[in-house]
């Protein structure tokens, strides 16, 4: 049974959250900016990069090879170099991310069916892009070598490696990044709504009034939590629609599983927000507290790069972060059709975080009354 005074409190909180026009803007503008940024700017893809070619060979084969580079869409332009020192300076000055060095004997070696080495020099200042670029260049070289001997009475290749990606076949960065916004944007919105609402009441002195009202501490907690939950579900639903309708990323898993994960995730975030607000007495402190939680939560969640790549001693910290678990669920349900059984493994830790933080916050609020 929900008491009428609890409903009154929830209604009051919802009205308070949306009354301020500045807050209303804060609900709309930052999410829109982030959606724009993550859909278009968050990419590690390597394209439009300049490369350099230093060709010492005068034969036909090297010319054919270079024309393959020219046709490849990943390169913005090709710098033609004529000496070793130019290669050095092209890489140094970042005029080229990679330089391909074709030796003098390239065509001769190929013609006599001998191995023809090709040196690829890469700029390690961007080692991640360099590695990916190296992969592109390798496949061009391999394909060229295969085509070169085509039509001859040679036995077919012993083996070939077929490269396939599941869940996101074209390895689109936007497809991988955008669903994660269901987690990150919902988290920031709910966190700030709750933290600021409690702190504002503290500053205005209305929180004292709440405490002396007939409401129990538990009811105050629920009164603050339920609007957060409602806003969180609304924000997540809006982003869900944006992801599926505007960006056309289909939801492969079940919506029910996603929302089951979402509600437990929101409870954990609400618990953390209430915990922060039970410690902060001004809006400024509350904001600072929210930032201090948010920055590590974003960085240590696998949002930017996989949790697996973090040092081993940091992994437990990542496991204590509700966002880590929810991002696995969101990406899993959107892209990988994650079954309930696997989602459940990620729900338990978030539930534990929710229970710990909410009870700690209740205890701290109750102590204030005592």
């Amino acid at each position, binding site marked *: 049974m929900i008491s009428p005074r609890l409903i009154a409190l929830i209604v009051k909180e919802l009205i308070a959250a949306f009354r301020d026009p500045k807050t209303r803007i804060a609900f709309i503008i930052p999410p829109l900016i982030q959606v724009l940024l993550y859909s*278009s*700017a*968050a*990419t*590690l*893809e*390597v*394209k*439009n990069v300049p490369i350099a070619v230093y060709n010492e060979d005068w034969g036909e084969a090297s010319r054919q090879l270079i024309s393959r580079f020219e046709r490849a869409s990943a390169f*913005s332009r090709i710098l033609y170099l004529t000496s070793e020192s130019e290669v050095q300076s092209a890489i*140094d*000055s*970042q005029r080229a991310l990679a330089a391909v060095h074709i030796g003098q004997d390239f065509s001769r070696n190929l013609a006599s069916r001998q*191995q*023809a*080495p090709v040196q690829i*020099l*890469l*700029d*390690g*200042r961007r*080692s*991640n*892009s*360099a*590695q*990916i670029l190296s992969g592109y*260049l*390798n496949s061009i070289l391999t394909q060229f070598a295969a085509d070169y*001997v085509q039509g001859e009475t*040679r036995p*077919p290749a*012993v*083996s*070939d*490696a077929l490269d*396939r*990606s*599941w*869940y*996101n076949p074209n*390895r*689109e960065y936007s*497809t*991988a990044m955008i669903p994660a916004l269901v987690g990150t944007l919902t988290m920031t919105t709910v966190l700030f709504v709750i933290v600021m609402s409690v702190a504002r009441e503290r500053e205005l002195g209305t929180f004292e009034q709440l405490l002396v009202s007939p409401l129990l501490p538990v009811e105050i907690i629920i009164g603050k939590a339920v609007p957060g939950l409602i806003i969180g579900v609304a924000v997540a639903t809006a982003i869900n629609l944006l992801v599926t309708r505007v960006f056309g990323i289909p939801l492969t898993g079940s919506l029910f599983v996603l929302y089951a994960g979402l509600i437990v995730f929101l409870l954990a975030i609400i618990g953390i927000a209430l915990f922060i607000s039970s410690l902060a007495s001004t*809006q*400024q402190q509350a*904001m600072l507290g929210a930032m201090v939680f948010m920055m590590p939560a974003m*960085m*240590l969640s696998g949002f930017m*790069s*996989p949790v*697996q*790549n973090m040092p081993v001693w*940091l992994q437990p910290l990542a496991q204590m972060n509700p966002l880590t678990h929810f991002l*696995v669920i969101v*990406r899993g349900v959107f*892209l990988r059709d994650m*079954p309930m059984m*696997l989602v459940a493994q990620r729900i338990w830790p978030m539930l534990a975080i929710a229970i710990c933080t909410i009870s700690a916050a209740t205890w701290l609020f109750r102590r204030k009354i005592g």
Partner: protein
Amino acid sequence: MSDHDLMTRPLAKVQGVEAHPIDLRRGRMRRINALVRKEALQTLRDPSSLIVAVVLPVLLLFLYGFGVSFDVTTVRIGLVIENPTPDTGRFQQALSNTPFFDVRVSGDRRAFLNDLTASRIEGVVVLGGDFTQRLARGDTAPVQIITDGSDPNTASLVTAYVQGAWQSWLDQRQLSSGAANAALITPIPRIWFNPELESRRFLVPGSIALILMMIGSLLTALVVSREWERGTIEALLATPASVPEFLIGKVVPNFILGCVAMAVSVTFALFVFHVPLRGSVLTLILATTAFLLVALSAGLLISTVARTQFLASQIAMLASFLPGLFFSGFIFELASMPAPLRAFSQLVPARYFVSALQTIFLAGDIAAVLVPDILILMVMSVAVIVLTARNSKMRLD
């Protein structure tokens, strides 16, 4: 009185007495000295600026340095062997021999489906049931590499690693069978500046740029808005100090704090993250100075708009953090972005500092990169300072 008048307002123009130019200059120096002293004392007295200069960089560098990494240190692979034979055994050997692979074997690819979905493995390699037969027949025996496309970067790296192991298995096989069927073209990759391919080596210098932008703008954004908030700006306005003098007074102590933050970050980068410093300290100082001027004056510009510390810190964080994260080339690939965003990135000061720092740390003093970077930063700092001086309304209304 217009803003322009304020900027060029003759000093000590007291009751029609025309001051001598030398006196004017001396008066200006004296006032700047006094303002700088006042600001320095205020900064030292308030622990929050010291926290921003010392604790924040350590905290942020810790998060970026350890939290972001593109290095797939152990690749957990599910190897599906539908029909085990000595041939598949040799392939498995080739995978297991590679130090970064952690290989688990199964006879059925469905066994790894859940593992891939739950990110417990990074990829699945499938040797079909007819792998050995095809090899024996002289047919092409396919090796299927399945990766998790929902993490595109890891997927690309894992594919490349497995292909490397596959290539070495192939070479081994050619060698033992004595067939002259080896790959005709052998790419020999060489990575300069970062042969270990540690992503941390370029991420740490990049994050230093981002951190310094945040700290620089945060520090100065706070100091002017603090004067507004506390009402001490009235006392300052009543002094004969002009706008430029006032701004110099604000910038100098925070410049020193910014240098402290930079020193802390560089120490951390060198000794905790073991990033090499191949360029000279002098170049590092030069680039830092140019960038700090931009960051600090950006903070001043923000505080001319925002009159409360709270609002100022919010704007400073947002205005330095988001563009710094997305458009500095620190994590994301600028070249792959749409043209309008690429054009916008040209206006982000952090972009030039990221490029300069990556070069100074990893490559050395390369004039072709550093001279344009530092020049652009200097031009930007002048532009922002002029903009700030024009916008600073030294009036109470």
